[in-house]
């Protein structure tokens, strides 16, 4: 059984201008020791999905099914999901400075979750905090426990966030754009760190990103989201080598390639993502799609990712499997 099973996830926000379905029918599974990257533009629903898995939505309607190690999160009592947070599943956020409390020493912020979930005393929790700080590569961890987030550099702060996530030995680690706020040189170090702790602990890692470079470096599998739904899902290398969905091809065309023609122009995808308050009929990508065909129902019916289906699949009328 997979550690994480998401089936037909729907997340709906009630706004002043009507219902906004930010995630509409997302399904995937993730095994221990594997990394799945969810890729998409801002507003594609990737962060909303990750917050739903953590049970952190407070004013959105979450439907469908999310099982973490066989335990249902959707519709479960709030207190039961709270006990799983930080313990079974932990999360690392985008901007480590604003995600750490400015007024508490990092040692306290790490130890607090350990005390809560394991009923540990202050001394034991402090030791554990120093241990995980050392594990994520912070030199002299015992001394740095007493320091505050502003006394750390950006990369070190993200290491603190990762240490905090690891403190209670979770099985699922969700990293929401963990390198976006960091310098390029530090990004690589953080990705290496996540890969290392994943191996050491056999973690299932869900990596949310808009950066295909991060995917190529870190992910086993990749799931491409567009306008609240998955459009392509498959092994990372295969998806990069043979993208099946026009949107994925569009994303890859936006990237410069070291092995490509230096003269070749980067081709942006024309237009903007649709408003999710009134998504287009049919395929949500069809208004921007360069490959859409009049003979196909692109503008009429919405293609869905085959469930179950081949390891590498896409939701597009151009493909046999979708029809």
């Amino acid at each position, binding site marked *: 059984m997979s550690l994480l099973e998401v089936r037909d996830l729907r997340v709906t926000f009630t706004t002043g201008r009507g219902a906004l379905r930010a995630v509409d029918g997302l399904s995937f599974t993730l095994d221990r020791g594997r990394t799945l990257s969810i890729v998409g533009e801002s507003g594609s629903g990737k962060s909303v999905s990750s917050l739903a898995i953590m049970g*952190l939505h407070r004013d959105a309607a979450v439907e469908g099914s999310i099982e973490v190690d066989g335990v249902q999160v959707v519709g479960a009592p709030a207190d039961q999901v709270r006990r799983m*947070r930080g313990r079974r599943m932990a999360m690392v956020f985008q901007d480590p400075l604003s*995600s*750490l409390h*400015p*007024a508490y020493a990092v040692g306290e912020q790490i130890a607090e*979750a350990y005390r809560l979930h394991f009923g540990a005393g202050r001394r034991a929790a402090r030791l554990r905090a120093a241990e995980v700080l050392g594990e994520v590569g912070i030199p002299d961890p015992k001394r740095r426990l007493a320091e*505050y987030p*502003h006394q750390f550099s950006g990369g070190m702060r993200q290491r603190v966030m990762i240490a*905090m996530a690891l403190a209670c030995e979770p099985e699922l680690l969700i990293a929401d754009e963990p390198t976006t706020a960091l310098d390029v040189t530090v990004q690589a170090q953080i990705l290496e760190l996540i890969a290392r702790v994943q191996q050491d602990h056999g973690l299932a890692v869900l990596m949310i990103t808009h950066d295909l470079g991060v995917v190529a470096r870190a992910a086993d599998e990749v799931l491409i989201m567009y306008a609240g739904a998955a459009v392509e899902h498959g092994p990372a290398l295969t998806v990069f080598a043979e993208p099946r969905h026009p949107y994925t091809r569009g994303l890859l065309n936006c990237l410069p390639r070291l092995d490509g023609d230096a003269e070749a122009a980067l081709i942006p995808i024309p237009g903007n993502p649709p408003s999710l308050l009134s998504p287009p009929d049919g395929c949500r990508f069809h208004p921007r799609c360069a490959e859409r065909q009049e003979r196909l129902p692109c503008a009429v019916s919405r293609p869905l990712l085959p469930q179950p289906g081949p390891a590498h699949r896409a939701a597009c009328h151009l493909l046999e499997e979708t029809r």
Partner: protein
Amino acid sequence: MAGFALRRVAGLVLVLLTVCAATFAIFYLLPSDPALQACGKSCTTERIAELHRQMGLDKPVWQQFADYLGGIVGGRTIGTGDLAVRCGFPCFGFSYQADRPVWDLMVDRLPTTASIAAGAAVLWLVIGLSVGIGSALRKGSGLDRSLMAATLTAASLPVFFTGLMALYLVVQVAGLLPFPTYVDFGDDPLGWARNLILPWIVLALLYAAMYARLSRSSMIETLSEPYIRTARAKGLPERVVVIKHGLRSALTPIVTVFGMDLGTLLGGAIITESVFGLPGIGQLTIDAINKSDQPVVMGVALLAAFFITLFTVLVDLLYAVVDPRVRVS
């Protein structure tokens, strides 16, 4: 930390010196001549000149200012000859009207004002913060909206209105409480509280309304911070998230305002004291102004400035304790 505290205290002294010079200049420039007032109706030019000499008003202004400052620091003798009086430390001069050292007058009045301020402060903090935080946690609900409407009403009612209404309804009509007079806390703690409860409530109502609105917006802002999401992601119970992680940050702006408000109030709750006829610093100020009792006006102005700057410094020091980022920089 010690250097930080020292710099703040040095700043306090500088501010007080400036206030001192400013008030002194203002009163020196005023047309009213204290000698003329002291002399009465049948006054001769010689008598006025003599009074000037006795009061030290014939000296150059910088000399007078230096004498005044010297008196505050170490006491001084005012006047010459038979009329010379010793004004002990700290000497803020003599009241023309009461013929007593200004310091003694202020010391007499301060317990009343301090009692009003302290009791009201406790009330408004408790009420204001509970309403504000409760509203923030139920943002947009019916409770939130009615509480905020209530605070808007309370904030717009002036003390002279609520005070008189309270006196009329509670004391006059219902007869539940005596008309407030000041009873010393040491003599009769219960009587002290019974007499001050109405002024406390009336004054606290106004401040509680402002503090409720302030703490509500501060709390809402804090609860939307990413580090609050982190706290929830750790699995902390909502109570810990709100109190330990939310309130800690949300209180910072409230501490600032509270320090200033308390400092200002200690300089005299003028309207409240007037409405309830309580003999505090505020009443002293009003009387002194009405009677052109310049040494007293200067004294209370300095006292008010002292409290405000003192509490500002205290807030700064408290900030360094609350926010580690201040401590380091």
